[in-house]
């Protein structure tokens, strides 16, 4: 089989070779028989062929003497004029592959100066690469002038027609590429997995891609030409309009998240949009493109993720919170039971007085009765009650306060979070988180707060913000416990500062714990990276802190740490100036 194929191929090769030889023979016949002198050079200027008209009439030699040699080496044989033309124009010709026509006077082999028209053009190999230059000469001296004119005219016509052809081709290519570009753009737009809306400067809808059709359930045909604010979609138009004017004002892209809209089924959904202005000449703004997606699923997923982390945090804190509640409940219960007994005793005490009054009313009170009442009074332990009841009441109220505080603070967990920012009092929120985490730090650390009371309200996702503070406080307590040991008599210090720094609210949470080793510093914000043993952390805390502060609040989170000495996390949140001034 293989053998057969090989033979077949060999056959073909032989055939091709035969054909090639044949055409070559014909070609050389043609060249040799035409009356016009002709010669062929390769790209290096070496003569590879010529006809008898050239060798005999012009040079007076044989082809053997010159073929295989460069014309520039043949100074004795090739006339100066011819060599000059070649030297000057070969490079240009080889590069541009046009036809060159020259008129020149050449001294021929018979010693007579004759005028020649020299027509030169390149020839290419079968692969299209330029292989050399063919030059054909026309003796003008012998021919009539008309021939020359005709020749001139033809050459001119050829030139202009060539030019015209090139122009047409260029046009065609340009048109084709514009068409193609259009097609590509349209294709791109329709295949984009995102919403793409193009608006003119007057907010007129120019583009409305398939995804936009799908998300809003309105076809492009229904909308093109109308303005975006009147397109009939139930959405937070103000937010979008603000975004558009902001992007046009700044001349750059603006991202707006969680744009509320209601789809035709009445479902509440969310969009994430990026609005980009596009500029015409001289920076005049032509319109904007709005790219975006229905991010409802993502918003929900993120909310879920946060919720699950929150649940995990609750799980971790639950034991501590329970302990914090159980302790005051114990003494509230004990005191109340005591008060119940005390009240009984006091009522009995009142009974003694009644008895005494009754006795006094009916005459002088006997010494015996006084003694007996005194004795019973002592038995009722009234002196002790007098002293202890107020304290019991006071401590009961304290216990109830403590429980109330914890339960109040626990509301930060009840908040679903994730949907809308609201202005919050950062100091107050931190205070709540401190309450809720008390059992986590109180055995290992003192907690000092230094709050800037002039800090304005900051627009935050409340639950997420508290979650970050919670993570950082728990981490701080762990770091101190790692340094001092679990039941160390030595207590560390956790310090929480807040301050305003220009348009930033800065929160600094520092501890006197173990610090973060150099080797892991770059990984601490990685999701699921943890150095804690199971049950103490899952490596989500700092990753979530980073995402909440940096991504959701456009803030920054930095740390300063020294092994064996402690760590400080510095959070910075942008203060909304309008909000702060209204405050």
């Amino acid at each position, binding site marked *: 089989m293989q053998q057969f194929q090989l033979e077949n191929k060999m056959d073909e090769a032989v055939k091709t070779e035969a054909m090639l030889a044949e055409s070559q023979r014909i070609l050389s016949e043609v060249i040799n028989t035409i009356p016009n002198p002709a010669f062929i050079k390769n790209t290096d200027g070496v003569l590879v062929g010529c006809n008898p008209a050239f060798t005999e009439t012009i040079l007076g030699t044989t082809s053997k003497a010159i073929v295989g040699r460069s014309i520039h080496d043949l100074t004795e044989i090739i006339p100066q004029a011819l060599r000059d033309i070649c030297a000057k124009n070969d490079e240009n010709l080889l590069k541009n592959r046009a036809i060159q026509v020259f008129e020149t006077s050449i001294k021929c082999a018979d010693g007579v100066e004759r005028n020649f028209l020299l027509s030169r053009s390149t020839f290419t190999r079968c692969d299209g690469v330029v292989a050399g230059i063919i030059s054909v000469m026309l003796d003008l001296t012998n021919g009539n002038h008309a021939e020359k004119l005709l020749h001139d005219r033809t050459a001119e016509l050829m030139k202009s027609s060539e030019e015209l052809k090139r122009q047409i081709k260029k046009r065609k290519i340009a048109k084709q590429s514009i068409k193609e570009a259009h097609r590509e753009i349209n294709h791109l737009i329709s295949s984009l997995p995102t919403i793409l809306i193009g608006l003119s400067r007057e907010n007129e809808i120019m583009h409305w891609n398939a995804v936009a059709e799908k998300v809003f359930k309105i076809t492009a045909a229904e909308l093109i030409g109308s303005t975006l604010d009147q397109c009939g979609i139930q959405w937070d138009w103000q937010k979008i309009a603000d975004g558009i004017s902001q992007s046009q004002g700044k001349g750059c892209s603006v991202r707006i998240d969680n744009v509320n809209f209601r789809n035709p089924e009445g479902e509440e959904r969310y969009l994430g949009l990026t609005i980009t202005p596009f500029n015409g000449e001289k920076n005049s703004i032509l319109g904007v493109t709005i790219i975006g997606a229905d991010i409802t699923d993502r918003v929900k997923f993120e909310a879920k993720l946060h919720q699950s982390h929150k649940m995990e945090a609750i799980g971790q804190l*639950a*034991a501590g919170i*329970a*302990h*914090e*509640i*159980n*302790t*005051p*409940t*114990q*003494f*509230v*219960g*004990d*005191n109340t*039971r*005591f008060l119940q*007994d005390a009240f009984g005793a006091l009522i009995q005490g009142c009974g003694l007085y009644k008895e005494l009054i009754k006795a006094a009313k009916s005459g002088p009170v006997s010494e015996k009765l006084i003694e007996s009442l005194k004795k019973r009074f002592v038995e009722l*332990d009234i002196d*002790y009650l007098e002293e*202890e009841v107020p*304290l*019991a009441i006071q*401590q009961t109220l*304290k*216990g109830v306060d403590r429980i109330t505080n914890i339960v109040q603070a626990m509301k930060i967990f009840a908040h679903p979070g994730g949907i809308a920012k609201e202005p919050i009092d950062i100091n107050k929120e931190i205070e709540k988180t401190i309450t809720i985490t008390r059992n986590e730090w109180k*055995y290992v650390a003192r907690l000092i707060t230094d709050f800037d009371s002039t800090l304005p309200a900051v627009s935050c996702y409340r639950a997420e913000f508290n979650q970050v503070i919670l993570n950082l406080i728990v981490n701080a307590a762990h770091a101190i416990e790692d340094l001092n040991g679990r*039941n*160390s*008599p030595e*207590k560390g210090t956790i310090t929480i500062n807040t301050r305003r720094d220009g348009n930033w609210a800065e929160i600094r949470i520092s501890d006197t714990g173990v610090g973060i080793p150099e080797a892991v510093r770059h990984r601490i914000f990685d999701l699921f990276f943890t150095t804690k043993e199971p*049950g103490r952390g899952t490596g989500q805390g700092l990753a979530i802190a980073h995402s909440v502060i940096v991504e959701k609040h456009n803030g920054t989170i930095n740390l300063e740490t020294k092994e064996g000495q402690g760590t400080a996390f510095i959070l910075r949140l942008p203060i909304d100036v309008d909000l702060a001034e209204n405050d």
Partner: protein
Amino acid sequence: MTDQTKKRILFVDDEPMVLKGLQRTLRKMRGEWEMVFTDSSKQALGILTSEPFDVIVSDLRMPEMDGAQLLAEVKSKHPQVVRIILSGQVEQETTFKSFQLAHQSLSKPCDADILRQTLNQLFALRSLLADESIKRIVSQTETLPSLPKVYTEVIGELQSADPSIKKVGEIISSDLGMTAKILQIVNSAFLGLVRKISNPKEAVMLLGTETIKALVLSVKIFSEFNQKKYAWFDFEHLFNHSLSVSMFTQTISKEEHLDQNLVNNALMAGMFHDLGKLILVTNFQEPYRKILAEARETGQDLWDLENEMFGTSHAEIGAYLMGLWGLEYPIIEAIAFHHCPAKSLSHATGLLTAVHFGDVYDRLKNSCNAENGLSRLDRGYLANLGVADRINGWQMICKELTERKV
């Protein structure tokens, strides 16, 4: 100057307001109890060194020295002091570790009445054992040895890829020590169960596989009986006898239409009646070995010899430990007086009656010594209860039960 007639209790809690609350609400006990309060573990240790105490009630999570450390110290330095935890801690991990250190655990918030009851029951127990050195030994007992084959079996099942909770329950319920320990844990107030659990299988189900695993494999609440060391003691016989008496007790309790709560506790009362022997075997090797040999040779009653030697018997010792571990009073009573029911203060047919009969009947069956018959039965006691005529009936059911089992 301590009043000898008063019971002395030391309360330790890092929250002064908890101590104040306890002080106020327990003030009415001041006639019977001498109470000392401190908010520091270190101080508590100092106080214990200078004054005698019957009970210490301690919080768990405290700064500097936590409750577990404190109780460990108390256990080794003052073993006679009964250790109770009163904690708001709900983390299971720490809680489980404390089981090894405390006799009983109460969780905050704890009703002062329950605390009072618990303490009173413990004080009532104290009179069971007169000898302080034995009291000390019993107080220090954390685990009871288990049959090696049962021990291996339970460990194997728990370490298997997919342990069956049902099987674990079955294995545990076939062992005396494991059953006692698991009931102590499940009934501790930490788990927050309202009713008392008296069925080990139910206890295992309630605790769940993961908890049981943690308890058995890490906290090591069970231990293996060293058969080589105690080759002179027929461990297996004790187990079989305990299981038989357990069954008899339950059947008789039902037959006598005892209160449902008593019927529920019947299996345990029978099971644990001779549990004190385990403590004697492992703590008083040589003397106990001698007594056993003597009892075998002379046919004398073992508890008489025990009384001669120790001033107490396995019955009181077992009852005392089960009391410390918080089992219910009817069980404690049945264990304590199963040889001499007339000494008990209750005058109604109860678990004690059933255990007394079951024990005598089973030993008769085992010894094949029909000659003595049921002579060990306290017929006077039974007559006083008005159940002397029931003896034949009980014999019949027990016989039937044994035959069915065979």
